[in-house]
């Protein structure tokens, strides 16, 4: 008898699932489910202000990295898991467009700069931010070894930089893939010889950004052995000495442009409000917070970067770029070729 009672108690507590769920589903509340990637962050004040002004509550659900996000959208396109998606990037945009996951919507705010990065004639994707991947260096460590700062892809293959570069595996890491794409976009068919040369100079390959940046790179808190790392154009903004001077630097001629897009999902439960949220993503309030919240650059052209960023991490002016369709077509083959060239 006691066991039955125990069972009843357990089952009731489970069906209520009191502890973890807590879905505040009030009647008549306007709610937009925003599915996004792991790196999404926004200050509570900005989100609260939007709710008060519009009456819309944004319900954020993170679905992994940009690749995981896109693939889950594709898998659930017949019955989408949200109303609006944000975080599909240059590398995966083509798949999302091909599978017709998004429906057209041209936000009035897109004309304030976002349109520069447009990739779809029918406006199914709207650029929200830019997160370029660049080689980062630790100038103090390079000076201590009496070598000049590298300034280009070609410099990295010089003997002076033997055993100094650490990169991420393009198969498992999104900055790793962006760097590989950058070398292909800049060097064309010469990318294979280039990577052979890097290999000859003792390039180190690790599987993720965490190992590369926080453990192997000498310019981060991990104080690792290697002074050159593949990271983001924005990373130096986080490595600033107490007197305000940056301690690391992005090499601006080794950058690859990564744009992150948002779009209203086809079959969304709440299309009208989803559009309003997309407008909000392009609002000056949201855009001005994007650098410090997510370490990316606003797509709007009329929003100023924070002061530390202007000195430490300006937006690269002429990064390498590649058509998302070309990326989608070749990604797997390039990664396989790269794996054969460069040992893990």
């Amino acid at each position: 008898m006691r066991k039955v009672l125990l069972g009843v108690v357990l089952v009731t507590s489970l069906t209520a699932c009191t502890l973890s769920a807590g879905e505040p589903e009030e009647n008549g509340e306007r709610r937009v489910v925003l599915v996004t990637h792991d790196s999404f962050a926004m200050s509570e004040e900005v989100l609260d202000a939007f709710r008060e002004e519009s009456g819309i509550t944004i319900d954020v659900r993170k679905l992994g990295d940009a690749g995981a996000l896109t693939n889950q959208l594709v898998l659930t396109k017949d019955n989408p898991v949200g109303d609006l998606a944000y975080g599909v990037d240059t590398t995966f945009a083509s798949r999302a467009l091909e599978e017709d996951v998004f429906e057209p919507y041209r936000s009035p705010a897109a004309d304030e700069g976002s349109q520069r990065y447009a990739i779809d004639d029918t406006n199914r994707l709207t650029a929200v931010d830019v997160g370029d991947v660049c080689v980062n260096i630790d100038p103090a460590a390079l000076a201590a070894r009496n070598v000049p700062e590298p300034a280009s892809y070609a410099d990295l293959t010089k003997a002076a930089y033997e055993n100094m570069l650490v990169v991420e595996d393009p198969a498992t890491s999104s900055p790793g893939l962006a760097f590989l794409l950058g070398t292909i976009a800049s060097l064309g068919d010469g990318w294979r010889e280039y990577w052979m040369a890097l290999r000859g100079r003792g390039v180190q390959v690790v599987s993720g950004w965490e190992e590369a940046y926080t453990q192997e790179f000498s310019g981060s808190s991990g104080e690792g052995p290697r002074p050159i790392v593949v990271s983001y154009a924005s990373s130096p903004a986080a490595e600033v000495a107490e007197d305000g001077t940056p301690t690391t630097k992005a090499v601006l001629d080794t950058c690859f442009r990564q744009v992150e897009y948002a779009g209203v999902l086809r079959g969304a439960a709440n299309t009208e409000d989803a559009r309003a949220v997309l407008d909000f993503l392009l609002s000056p309030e949201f855009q001005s917070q994007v650098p410090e919240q997510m370490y990316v650059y606003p797509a709007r052209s009329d929003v100023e970067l924070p002061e530390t960023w202007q000195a430490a991490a300006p937006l690269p002016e002429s990064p390498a770029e590649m058509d998302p369709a070309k990326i989608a077509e070749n990604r797997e083959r390039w990664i396989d070729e790269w794996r054969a060239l460069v040992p893990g």
Partner: protein
Amino acid sequence: MARTRTGLSPGLLLVALVPLGFLAVFFVWPVVAIVRLGFGEGGVLAVLGSADTWQLVAFTVGQAAASTVLAVLAGVPVAYLLARTSLPGLGLVRVVILVPFVLPTVVVGLAFRTLLPDGGVLAIVLANSFFNVAVVARTVAGLWSHVDGRAADAARSLGASPLRAFTSVTLPALAPALTSAAAVVFLFCATSFGVVLILGGSRYRTLETEIYLRTVELLDLSGAAALSLVQLAAVVAALSVGVLARRRRESALRLRGRASVARRPRGGQSWAVVGAALGVVVLLLVPVVVLVARSFDGGFAGYRALAGFGHEGSLQVSGWEAAANSLRAATDATALAVFLGTLASVVLVSLSRGRVRRGVVETMDTVLMLPLGVSAVTVGFGYLVTLDLLPGDLRTSPALVPLAQALVVTPLVIRMLLPVLRSIDTRLRQAAASLGASPWRVWREVDVPVAGRSLLTATAFGYVVALGEFGATSFLARPDTATLPVAVARLLSRPGELNNQMAYAACTLLVLVTVAAVALVESVGRSRVVEF
């Protein structure tokens, strides 16, 4: 209770439907659905035929087997320490050996990369066994503390060497727990993901990392389906080996209460084993101490930041809120898993006590273990294409977190309870019944007291696994319901010194929360469990 000739009562059948139904809805259906999608795309046979696939299988099974052997070798002395000695401070040892289990894989991966910069197979095997020593130690100790030591004493007085007495008397008695633990550890190691990715790089890949890449990054569902089938086959094969090993060994033991078998170590051999056990415990704690030390790199800066909302909005919850979120999700998951696991164990042991064919029992047992051996990504993506058909659309709901965690914890509960329940002398139960005790009464008076400690261990383990769970939680938790492991991963993925200090401070908090929660479970449980 009316019993049919097979020993299967209608009540038992009903009880069996609960865990099996849960398994059907939250495991079998999603996995079958996603694998079927893969088959629809074609190309499965090509993957099955490629030499690359079989290399993956060989490496996966090889590293898992090596890790399991190492975990067993390190775990048995600790089990002896916990079960057969009465040294002061054992309560603390019992709790702290569970800590590795809860550490985020990215943190452990980074720690082992520091210790063994060249990484490779050795690092992978060491890291995998680091996580799993506690499974062996606690599962084996649960049985060992009830094994009558007089048989071994008799062997010794008849002239057997201590080693001989151990291998021919004690070891056979422990076999059910050893094979149980080894099966669980093997499955954990075969599906270990984070450490293999960090330590193996692109050189060492396993079925699990490859399924992840194909599913999540490439959306190559046919390739993933093929590899999932191979993984399933490998897991079933490994479990069958375990079942066969158990078949040869299974026998009722004369289980006794704990107090009568624990004593101060006597003689050089005993102290040598105790020394080895303490050595293992110290080694387990080294990475923990290192990360706690790292959290103080910048003085208390990391902790101060954690008390707030993190550096420049890195987190949407404070460290304390994340800790509370962790505890909440873990409580739900553990309650559910202990409930389901206990029902399943009762059914399994009742079936094997009745006259049900052994094959049926063993098949059900194996099926219940499968969630440990199938890739979390396969299950997770399976949820995406199935769960919207259920009322409430659980696909991206935080309510799915405890359900997904329970899927992993339930088999663990079963593996910890079952060996003890199986080893209970049926004559004891028959005696109770012939003295007029009802079936319920027999359970309460005979089985519950003996299995109580193992149930406690299972609860503590469930708690720890759920607290440390990262995969499902990171997918499903909302920013404001982030748990500590999710917060740690988030902090480590951002540049800046303070974020790093905070990550390690959050890790330390996770260790403290784990120790406190487990200590609480054990102390509450101990005062309730009647020992004889």
